[in-house]
């Protein structure tokens, strides 16, 4: 073996070792700081993890763009929804007076809130854009209570890492990390454009996450679970979206 190729071999070996070690350290740091999404396995795990980690570092406290009232889309687009199930229809017949929002998991006080209770908390509004992964979008005023307020009421344990949230429609659930859960624009929204939140837009209660695509803003919310691991939820991929082939994190 000539000197040149020996030197080349040693160099390549060192570079490869450094590369693998670097990746290993990077993965450990990412895990430590919660930068690995629950759907990180599989062939698209690399891109998913890079997107989530970099956006989480960049956007931990950033606010979604808010718009002028004149920019509100008229009329607001109500995306197609499946015909409501019987449980929904029963609550609808009662004017949603008995609509429940239950919270359990890593909380000091499990609780079930009525819509009236949620509306008794300080209400906030935001004029933000809802962008669908398909490519369309609209701007609306969303009125509700910040999720962080309700989480304060029930007392979230410090080791909590995720909030899983469930629609009254079976198999429609998502989850978010604490950066999104405690974000001031993450709402339990019950109103839109000055009125009630229409059923077509997710009424009576929708979880609104304006820094992610529309499919993370689940309609007809009835239940939240606070947890430190998503492994025992569904197939353990974080939410129903990855189970259907879509990314858990939808900030892009």
């Amino acid at each position: 073996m000539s000197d040149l190729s020996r030197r080349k071999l040693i160099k390549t070996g060192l570079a490869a070792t450094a590369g693998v070690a670097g990746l290993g350290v990077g993965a450990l740091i990412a895990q430590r700081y919660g930068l690995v999404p629950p759907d990180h396995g599989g062939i698209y795990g690399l891109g998913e993890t890079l997107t989530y980690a970099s956006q989480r570092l960049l956007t931990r406290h950033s606010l979604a763009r808010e718009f002028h009232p004149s920019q509100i889309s008229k009329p607001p687009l109500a995306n197609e929804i499946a015909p409501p199930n019987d449980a929904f229809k029963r609550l609808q017949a009662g004017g949603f007076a008995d609509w429940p929002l239950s919270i359990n998991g890593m909380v000091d006080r499990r609780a079930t809130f009525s819509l009236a209770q949620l509306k008794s908390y300080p209400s906030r509004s935001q004029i933000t854009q809802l962008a669908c992964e398909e490519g369309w979008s609209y701007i609306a005023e969303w009125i509700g209570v910040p999720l962080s307020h309700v989480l304060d009421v029930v007392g979230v344990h410090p080791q909590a890492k995720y909030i899983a949230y469930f629609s009254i429609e079976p198999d429609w659930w998502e989850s978010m990390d604490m950066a999104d859960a405690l974000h001031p624009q993450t709402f339990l929204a019950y109103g839109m454009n000055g009125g009630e939140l229409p059923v077509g837009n997710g009424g009576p209660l929708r979880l609104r996450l304006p820094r992610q695509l529309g499919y993370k803003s689940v309609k007809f919310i009835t239940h939240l679970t606070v947890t430190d691991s998503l492994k025992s939820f569904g197939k353990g991929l974080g939410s129903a979206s990855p189970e259907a082939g879509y990314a858990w994190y939808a900030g892009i």
Partner: protein
Amino acid sequence: MSDSAFLPSSASAVPVATITSRTSRHSALVRVTHWITTLCFLALLVSGAEIVVSHPRFYWGETGNVLTPTLFKLPIPASRRLVPTGYGYVLPDQNGWSRYLHFQAAWIVVLTGLLYTISIFFTGHLRKNLLPGNSDLSLRAFSTVIANHLRFQRPSEAEAWSYNVLQRLTYLFVIFVLFPLVIWTGLAMSPAFVSAVPATVTLLGGQQSARTLHFFVSVALLLFLLVHVGLVCLAGFRSRMRAMITGRAGTHREGI
């Protein structure tokens, strides 16, 4: 490694005698990044087309949906039922894996592109092979190259060793204009990214404008790809492919 064959920027001035079998036409870095970029671009193209099919309508400004007027529509069926296309059927929905693949390929091509762009400043590739020489920028030199292209003339032997001025300007445009633009317009559609850097989207006139521009820049990149492959075929597919795969350039003519 001998780079002497790369020095002259005017193709006809290449001293053919210096071309030996030991000389590499394309450095390993250029070859590896070229093919990674090719694979990623094809993945982005296919997945991007799948994403467009879910809503083949384009708008200008901040918002756009089926209730608002379009800037233009693609005359194709959609993969979602909500979109009025005039077609009586709905294509299979492929958005899930397409979006996963789109962003994964985007990450790989961006990292590859960064490595390439930073390195060409240090290896001399930019100065020697991409920036046109002074003599190339004269009107006469330009018209000669353009006339040769219009006559579909096969390039001279020496052109296997150097890019002509049109190639140089085109590659510079793709590297420093189209690629940055396609990344920018892509990021401008990300609700999380623009929450951190709102100017990304406001400078473009809104999220739907960004989407429309992303489409146009992608079409421009596709046109580049088609012309690029077409000219590779014209110049000699086998020799050009061999040069970009093994680094060795042919010194003999080959029949098409």
